[in-house]
């Protein structure tokens, strides 16, 4: 069973979404040992004994710099893809505290937003970088 369905249907955490099932859309991104894996194609066995963080566990109070920036800029529309977007952006900011627009493209082109909130995602990632540098979030 893919990690996605184990997280959603067995564990019951539904913040991680199903969008395509073939690693195309990124709605199912979770952190596996810190990496933004696509849980729809990741077997549960790969995660056995490893650290998995879903959107529900990204921060204590919905206040990871990425989440704060997303709220500040009112990024989401329908919101369905944004668990995945946020999980991807969090990895970007950990590895690159001051990403350029090109870095954002490189990190985020795997996450589809059908509502088309991409301009705001870009803006929010820049803001999250600032918040992170100021130690806020």
């Amino acid at each position, binding site marked *: 069973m893919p990690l996605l369905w184990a997280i959603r249907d067995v564990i019951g955490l539904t913040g991680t979404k199903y969008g395509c099932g*073939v*690693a*195309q859309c990124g709605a199912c*991104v979770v952190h596996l040992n810190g*990496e*933004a*894996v*696509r849980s729809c*194609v*990741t*077997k549960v066995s*790969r995660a056995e004994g490893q650290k998995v963080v879903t959107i529900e566990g990204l921060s204590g109070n919905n206040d990871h710099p990425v989440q704060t920036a997303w709220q500040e800029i009112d990024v989401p529309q329908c919101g369905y893809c944004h668990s995945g977007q946020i*999980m*991807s*952006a969090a*990895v*970007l900011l950990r*590895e*690159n505290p001051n990403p350029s627009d090109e*870095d954002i*493209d*490189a*990190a*985020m*082109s*795997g*996450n589809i937003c059908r509502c088309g909130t991409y301009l705001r995602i870009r803006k929010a990632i820049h803001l999250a970088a600032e918040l992170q540098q100021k130690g806020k979030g």
Partner: protein
Amino acid sequence: MTEHSGNKTRYALPVSMVAVLGLMVSILTGMGSAPMDLRDATDSEARSESYKKDSIQSVKAFLEVYKVLMSPRCMNCHPAGDVPLQGEDSHLHAMSPQRGKDGKGVFAMKCSNCHQASNTPGLHTPPGHPDWHLPPADMKMVFEGRTPHQLAKQLMDPNQNGRKTKEQLLAHANDGLVLAAWNPGEGRSTPPMSHEAFSKAWNTWIKKGGFAPPAQ
């Protein structure tokens, strides 16, 4: 050269190329640290068999090797740019994943985020291998767009082949990721010959001198 001439139709080498080939051979053998010097070989096969440098046989073998290297299964991960290719038509990989310094992708778009240790079942799902990656940024080992001549030279040049010694190069035919080309996942073609045939051609090419076909 008679033997070569005898095979020229097969390789579609114009006669005028023969002279070029001769010139090229001399350049190659004059390269000093020649990676094709068989005296360095530790490969047991190389030791047990008596290989002689043979530009004709070597080139003939390479042209077989080339067909494999240019198949989508090999070329797609040896792109000219920094985005891998995808599919039988070797189009740019959807969602533009970037090579990254180590060839393993960047940030939230690392190869292994989608490409698992083994193929994901189903059509159009990510093929897998534990070590899925592109060549690193400091040595891109581009296959896409390379002529046989260019590619053979590149492969034999440690400064362009991932700093592989000849024995490492020989061993590379059986590298896990290379083998993955023959286990490509549902719906994907395999290279145009068996791995065994490829491996044989690869060995012949290198052991007979690692010669490059003439530039065209």
